[in-house]
């Protein structure tokens, strides 16, 4: 029973994503950042497209009523008809799961110095590390359903819409096509 409750808590906490609305106060304190450090590109995105949920990774360039525009790390800009998009994940900040795993492993290892206390301290570290890893892994991204796609422009390099110079897709999206659209950025 206790194990089930723990699993439920982990699952519940593991499913918490960043809110879609970028104007929401994220908490913390406003920090000082140099002008040159202000990000000027779109957020990393993964679009799951079609019935087979094919992955399309890259920088989110723009979203409009017809297309989602993604620039893969290598290759040409892709325009994906919004009607084919099943969901989109936006990475808002690094997940830091690696740090969490490292910290948890070191913390768990340190309990070896506790003698028999490790029965308690070791299991606490394992449980905490597991919960932290799970929540961090999914707590750094925005997940948008098809009806929420228009709001993803807040995460795009071009929130005003894709510039004409980059447009290579037809004005109305043909069903089932993902088309290379323009220059490599």
């Amino acid at each position: 029973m206790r194990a089930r409750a723990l699993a439920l808590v982990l699952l519940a906490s593991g499913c918490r994503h960043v809110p879609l609305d970028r104007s929401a106060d994220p908490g913390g304190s406003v920090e000082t950042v140099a002008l040159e450090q202000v990000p000027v590109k779109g957020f990393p995105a993964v679009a799951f497209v079609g019935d087979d949920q094919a992955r399309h990774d890259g920088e989110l360039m723009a979203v409009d009523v017809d297309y989602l525009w993604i620039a893969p790390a290598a290759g040409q800009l892709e325009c994906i008809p919004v009607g084919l998009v099943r969901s989109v994940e936006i990475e808002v900040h690094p997940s830091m799961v690696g740090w969490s795993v490292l910290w948890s492993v070191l913390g768990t290892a340190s309990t070896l110095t506790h003698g028999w206390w490790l029965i308690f301290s070791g299991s606490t570290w394992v449980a905490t590390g597991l919960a932290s890893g799970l929540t961090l892994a999914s707590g750094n991204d925005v997940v948008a359903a098809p009806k929420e796609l228009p709001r993803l422009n807040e995460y795009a390099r071009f929130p005003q819409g894709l510039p004409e110079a980059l447009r290579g897709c037809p004005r109305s999206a043909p069903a089932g096509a993902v088309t290379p659209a323009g220059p490599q950025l």
Partner: protein
Amino acid sequence: MTVPQRLLGPSLLCLLAVTGCVTLWRAQFAKPSDAVALDASAPFLKAHLESGDLYVLTQWTIDPEARVIRGEGIRYDLERRAEPRAQHTLGFDEVALVETNAPHQVVKSQFVVMGVLTAVNVGLAAACLSSPKSCFGSCPTFYATTAGGETIVAEGFSQAVARSLETTDVDALAGVEPAQGVLHLTMKNEALESHAIRRLAVLAAPRPEHGRVYRDGAHYFQGEFPAAPTACTSAAGDCLAAVSKADALEYHSAADPADLATRETVRLRFPRGEGPRGLLVRGRASLLTTFVLYQALAWMGTQADEWLMALDRGGPAAAQRLAEVGALLGDVEVWVKTARGFERAGRFSEQGPISRDEQLVRLPDGLPAGDVELELRLTKGHWKLDQLGLVALGREVVPVALAPSQVRRGGVADAEALRRIRGEGPRLISNTGDVWELDFPVPGGPQDYFLEARGYYHEWIRGQWLPEQDPDKVARLFADPGGTLRALAPAFKQVEPEIDRLFEQSRIAP
């Protein structure tokens, strides 16, 4: 504050700064004509052009009347190649969309949790590393519900650290009352120890109408409530307030910095009364014995089991040698002034450092006229005396020994544990974190109760102790216990001010 504790805060901040902080960019979007509604405190404003070019401005302003945006910043083309930083003025018509940016530094709660866990980790390690001999050791602890809630009421056979030292320990269960004919006790193992319990019983003796039952060794007496002394003095000064009644205030002196066996005298004066009298001593040992025991085990190190088995094989004679070490620290000796001068009347002996015990020392008849004058001779820093009272004694009574009727573990009756605790099988073994619920059916009418526990225990050897392994020092401890107590004095004085706190911190709450 220890060095690890001093370093703890900055270390955690560094860890959190490196791993736990992320920058989240809060953003608001608007058309230029609606830009006055944006958060003006945001440090950056982005102006997105239809062409895909971007201006990132700082110290920005929006002039709705002139329909321009001004600021110092950088222009980027659509491939995000930067131009040199400059002052810019942009007309509303040039700009497709404006976006404010405010970087928020946010600490991820997951890392805060792990930071707290690390703090506990470091604190625990620091406490045990800075004073490994201060970590909790308690023998079986017994809890009961009293007027003050669930409180510790007894601890069993504290001095029985090896099988050959197995002993029967009797503790008064002061303030414990049965409910519906059953006296309920909870036995816990809250330390890194293994307890071997041969037998547990509750002794019940009929309580007089205006008084209580007191134990003097194997003898039990009804008596009136204790009378407080009129004077209590020691080398440290007046101790009357500390010992006048049973409360949280205790008389406790500091150990001698040169010799842990140095003794002191506490002088007491009581108004004389008629009839047989006895001195009630309510108190407990300090952690001095625990420190010496743990030091001995540290010196034994990885060979501790061999030493203890050798002790067991050596039988009572070998056990006696170990007991001699304890004897140097000694009991609280009670001396009374008679016509021939001060004579030894008896002793208070309790090795447990957690629960206070109550014992009676009967005074001889025929004391000289005037006040009753007593001296307590005890080792400095070895005792915590809560109450010293003169009791007018009544008749001797023989208590009834009551075996438990039920033992539960985790709420489930455990017939095998019951059989063992009743002394009808092998010893019950209780390990760290074990909790046992015990029910003792008691006779009707007002009774006073005592817990009789027989058994022994083994301390677990802590990893932090092993660097101190030194067989020569173990040999010296047995050959020259007095010299060892002198040699250990500086080390004990170093931890003495903190030892109670460290001891309590290392307790394992089941």
